[in-house]
């Protein structure tokens, strides 16, 4: 299979690890917490989702630093704001639809405006949550969190990066939001890949097109880039794991060469990564941009792979959009 062959070459040149075991990003959160938990100021608060948000191991290892608040997301974030006021560093974990979905105003007033050192973790984000359907597929979280003053927004791409991001936001002083997905995900970073909040990672270098992505869909972007390479189209793929603050410098460097941009995110195209990138480029370097995401629509039940295909997140779809943006025939 040429696609596989191309990926293997890409893999070699990038020192990536595509073909290791697939692991859910949320596992990286659970393991990251175990490491940061050595600091007694770290507290983990959960709203009746211990296992699926992967905080069970933390609860068992650090019972004194764990708080169960029940199914009450407004209380979840405001108790965390109070804990932060007395010197704790709280992580609050729920599904992204519930937190920040249910408790946005509390986050705005008691965490952002109050400038509290609280970490908000939105699990099960994106369409790939699958059979639970639209009520549980959070697509608006990036937009609503990105619009809040003082808030940092991080969307790691894989297990390893989520682990590193967990440690990074624990060390960062101030409000932070991190979203991840439910499904097992290919691994694109290794233990050696550096992670710094606000510093995007350039995975491939090419002057014909820049693809900017966040989250596990990054893998589909890399596959699309490998296919485009076969057509002699050279693509820069940027892992924009921090959506706020946006790494404008890295984006500008790539876009000055390519002058064409595709953004990809498992979220509404309004206000998310695509929104952030287009807002930035419109002010600094206006070029044609194609945003791939959910287009003003709710999700639905289905298997994760079916949904990713249906909503246009597959490598095949990204490849087609790239050719169309470049004015090339297939």
């Amino acid at each position, binding site marked *: 299979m040429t696609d596989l062959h191309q990926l293997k070459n890409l893999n070699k040149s990038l020192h990536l690890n595509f073909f290791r075991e697939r692991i859910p990003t949320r596992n990286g959160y659970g393991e990251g917490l175990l490491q940061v938990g050595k600091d007694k100021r770290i507290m983990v608060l959960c709203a009746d989702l211990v296992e699926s948000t992967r905080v069970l191991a933390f609860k068992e290892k650090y019972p004194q630093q764990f708080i169960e608040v029940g199914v009450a997301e407004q209380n979840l974030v*405001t108790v965390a*704001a*109070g804990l932060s*006021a007395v010197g704790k560093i*709280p992580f609050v974990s729920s599904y992204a639809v519930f937190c920040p979905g249910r408790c946005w105003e509390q986050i705005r007033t008691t965490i952002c405006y109050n*400038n509290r050192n609280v970490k908000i973790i939105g699990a099960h984000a994106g369409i790939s949550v699958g059979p639970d359907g639209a009520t549980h597929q959070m697509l608006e979280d990036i937009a609503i969190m990105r619009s809040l003053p003082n808030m940092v927004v991080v969307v790691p791409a894989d297990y390893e990066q989520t682990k590193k991001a967990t440690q990074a936001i624990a060390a960062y002083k101030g409000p932070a939001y991190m979203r991840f997905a439910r499904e097992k995900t290919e691994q694109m970073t290794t233990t050696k890949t550096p992670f710094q909040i606000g510093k995007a990672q350039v995975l491939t270098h090419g002057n014909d097109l820049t693809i900017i992505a966040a989250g596990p869909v990054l893998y589909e972007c890399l596959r699309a880039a490998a296919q485009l390479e076969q057509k002699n189209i050279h693509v820069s793929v940027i892992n924009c794991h921090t959506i706020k603050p946006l790494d404008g410098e890295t984006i500008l460097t790539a876009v000055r060469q390519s002058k064409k941009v595709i953004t990809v995110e498992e979220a509404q195209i309004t206000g998310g990564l695509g929104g952030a990138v287009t807002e930035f480029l419109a002010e600094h370097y206006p070029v044609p941009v194609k945003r791939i995401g959910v287009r003003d629509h709710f999700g639905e039940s289905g298997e994760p792979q079916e949904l990713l295909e249906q909503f246009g997140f597959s490598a095949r779809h990204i490849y087609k959009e790239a050719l169309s943006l470049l004015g090339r025939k297939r």
Partner: protein
Amino acid sequence: MKQLHSIKDLQMMANIIREDIITALTEAKSGHSAGPLGMADIFTALYFNVLKHNPRKPNWPGRDRLVLSNGHICPVLYATMANAGYFPKKELLTLRKLGTRLQGHPHRESLPGLETTSGPLGSGLSQAAGMAYGLKIDKKPNLVFALCSDGEHDEGNHWEAVLFAAKYKLSNLIAITDRNYIQIDGNTENIMPLDPLDQKYNAFNWNVITIDGNDFKQILAVLHKARSNRDRPLMIIANTIPGKGVEYMENDYRWHGSPPGTVKTERAPSLEEQSSIALDELHAREAELRGKWYRQHNKLDPLHTLQSKKRT
């Protein structure tokens, strides 16, 4: 910090705070009147008698925490803090104005001594519970006082905190509900009935004490017991008179969200005179004691008398 011990002293101080509330609101031309006036006695008792705090070191780790959940009554918080020495009294005249540290609803980072940012209702008790939880696991003796309104009991977030505080037996959490029976649109029992509120808290496994929130004897008695509160969080239901001290405002819900000079009612004098009538009425109280009291408690004159002294 200045401590006042006798009930007479506390009453005089509360009256000065009420006068300063009227002065600040009149100058601001917007803001809430009824709640701040009704809660002046409790704020006075807290800041001048009960709280461990230091206006010169607002971040002193050994302080008790006071969380104001219903941020809209902040004129009483600001007036009390100014009189307690957190900032110069004349700054009360900047309330709600561009560039002020005294935001229309409290913003923690604007003014040293504020423990939280508040305004949107129902979130204060849970922040206070978070503080109480953190202090408890660190075995700190500090108390957390959470001041709530009755109207904000309509909010689900508040009851989530009530469950939480009971589950974790946060006996260092002392909540006070300003039970004045009014909210913006009318009487609380018409908008969304809350009675019997004490029985609700009992059923939620809280200690509950109901007091007259405008009677210093009762206020001090219950607050002095707070440090020995055990096993459960404590809810003090303080029955207060909204607009207390200004006759034309008392028990009239229309003064919930309005400053002097804005509401024409049967009891209210003309709009232009509302402010000066309120100040005269408050100032006339215990008039014969005032001169002597002011001399004893240097620099504690109400703001409007300081202003008029300057003018003359």
